[in-house]
Structure formats: structure tokens, C-alpha cells
């Protein structure tokens, strides 16, 4: 059986490039996490209203940023996969989903741990919290949909459509705090007039944000490689079945 080598050209180059980036992503993640955790636990001051609970923000906000950006990246990847049939795009989206789900889960849990002492409740069905919960369900639904097809081509198509339909939730989450009267506070970093918080809080937050981003790159490289090799294995086994 002839195997179309053209199909492997891209994944191969992809693996070569990401293989070179990987060690750097590990180093950067470790350094940024060490600096970020030190700053958020020791250097950053307690808030005059929130006291030390403000430190929860350093693991909460970056997790929420990642939950939103990873989903957006998955939707873009899925569109590339659907339109140009790029062989790595679908696998990248598939590999990113569990990482995004973990970050979204962490944003919800840490937010809830902050809400109890500050709002007096672990959970409230306000627009920001509810739309964030929907994001978690979208991630889980996307992952379940991949598993429900034997035919990987069909799975890629169906999951891409789900990812693209679900992307409508991203601006809803982002603007929920402006559109509705939420208990959740409005944006204070990514605003039109620039960050509205003091640098003693902003810098640790940005360092943790970069650390989470670098962690994402590191884990994504591992997961995409596993997906590419898994696909090779599947093709290899199918071609063996046909020979015998």
C-alpha cells in the first residue's frame, strides 16, 4: 500500500520545530513559576479590603485567561483544519482541549475559594460565573465528541464545528461583567484605558500569566506529539491489516 508521504511532511517539520522549543519552554516555565509564586506569596502586599485573599487572584486570573485563550486558539485551529485540511491543526485543537479544561476548572475552583470569604458564597449564578461554567462544559463536550467517532476524519470535522459554534461564548464571558449586573468585578487589566491596578499587584499577576502561558506551550508540545505519533500508529496498523 502506498503511503502518501506528502501527508507527513508537515507533521514532521512541526515535530522538529516543537522539539527544539520544548526544552526552552520547560526552563522558562520553571523560572517564571518560581519568580511568580515568590512574588505573589511574599512580595505582593495584602489588599486593603480583601486582605491576603487577594493572593488567590494570582492563580485565579491567569487560569481564567488561559481558559479563554486556549478555547479561542482551538477555534482558530479548528477553522484552519476545516478550511485548509491542515493535518496538524485538528490534532493541535484536540491536544489543547484538556489543558484548557484544566485551567477553566482551576479558575472556577479558585474563584469559588475567593468568593466564600469575600462575597459570602462559594457560588452564585451570575453571568460571569455561569458563562465560565459553560466554557468548562464546552471543553468536556468537545473532548467527549472526539472519543465518540471511530473515523478520525469525521471526528475532526464534528469537533471543529462544535469548537467554532462554542466560540460565541468567549466574548460573552469577556463582556459579561459589562453587559450584566454581575457580582463578579469588571476587568481591571485588559481595559481600553490600560491596567487599572497598582504595579505591585500587576507585575506578579503578569509573571504568573506568562508562567501559565509557558506551561501551556510545554504541555501542548507533549500532547501534540503524542497525537501525531498515535495517528502514525493507527495508519501503520491499518496498512498492516490490509497487507495480511
Amino acid at each position, binding site marked *: 500500500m502506498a*503511503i*502518501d508521504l506528502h501527508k507527513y511532511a508537515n507533521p514532521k517539520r512541526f*515535530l522538529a520545530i516543537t522539539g527544539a522549543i520544548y526544552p526552552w519552554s520547560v526552563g522558562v516555565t520553571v523560572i517564571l513559576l518560581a519568580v511568580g509564586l515568590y512574588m505573589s*506569596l511574599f512580595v505582593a502586599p495584602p489588599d486593603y479590603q480583601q486582605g491576603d*485573599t487577594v493572593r488567590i487572584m494570582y492563580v485565579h486570573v491567569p487560569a481564567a485567561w488561559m481558559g479563554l485563550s486556549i478555547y479561542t486558539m482551538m477555534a482558530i485551529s479548528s477553522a484552519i483544519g476545516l478550511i485548509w485540511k491542515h493535518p496538524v491543526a485538528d490534532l493541535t485543537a484536540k491536544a489543547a482541549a484538556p489543558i484548557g479544561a484544566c485551567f477553566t476548572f482551576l479558575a472556577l475552583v479558585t474563584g469559588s475559594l475567593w468568593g466564600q470569604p469575600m462575597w459570602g458564597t462559594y457560588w452564585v449564578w451570575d453571568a460571569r460565573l455561569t458563562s465560565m461554567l459553560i466554557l468548562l462544559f464546552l471543553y468536556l463536550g468537545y473532548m467527549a465528541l472526539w472519543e465518540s467517532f471511530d473515523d478520525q476524519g469525521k471526528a475532526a470535522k464534528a469537533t471543529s464545528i462544535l469548537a467554532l459554534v462554542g466560540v460565541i461564548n468567549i466574548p460573552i464571558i469577556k463582556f459579561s461583567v459589562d453587559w450584566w449586573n454581575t457580582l463578579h468585578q469588571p476587568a481591571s487589566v485588559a481595559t481600553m484605558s490600560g491596567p487599572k491596578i497598582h504595579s505591585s499587584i500587576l507585575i506578579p499577576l503578569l509573571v504568573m500569566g506568562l508562567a501559565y502561558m509557558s506551561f501551556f506551550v510545554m*504541555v501542548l508540545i507533549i500532547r501534540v506529539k503524542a497525537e501525531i*505519533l498515535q495517528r502514525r500508529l493507527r495508519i501503520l496498523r491499518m*496498512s498492516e491489516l490490509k497487507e495480511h
Partner: protein
Amino acid sequence: MEQVTAFFDMGGYGLFVWPSFAISAVVLIVLYARSQSRLKSVERELAAAQDGRPRRAGSGAGELSGESLT
């Protein structure tokens, strides 16, 4: 010693601050470990599948083997 106690107390909010950091650490470490172990097992399976298959020139399968990319 007092400073250490105050640090863990987090102004009375230790019960909320520390679990937030702990669960973040646990989830991210488990995610990393599971991703890594899945890659290793796929690599092993692929190597085994390629060993069991005689290489033929131009079959294409040979092109896929023997790379180590991390």
C-alpha cells in the same frame, strides 16, 4: 517562628488561600505527568509496531521510524 505562623495564617484567610494554590499545583502537575506518560506509551507502541514490520525500501513506513524529537 511567629512570622512563619503569620505566613501560613494569611491574615486569617489561610483556609482559602492555601487550598487555591494547592489545587492549582495538583491539577497542573497531574496534567503534565499524564500527558508525558501518554506520550511515552504511544512512543513504545509505535516502536513495537515498527519493529514487527520488515522495512521495505520506498514503502513509506521506514520514513516514519527512528526519530527522537524531544
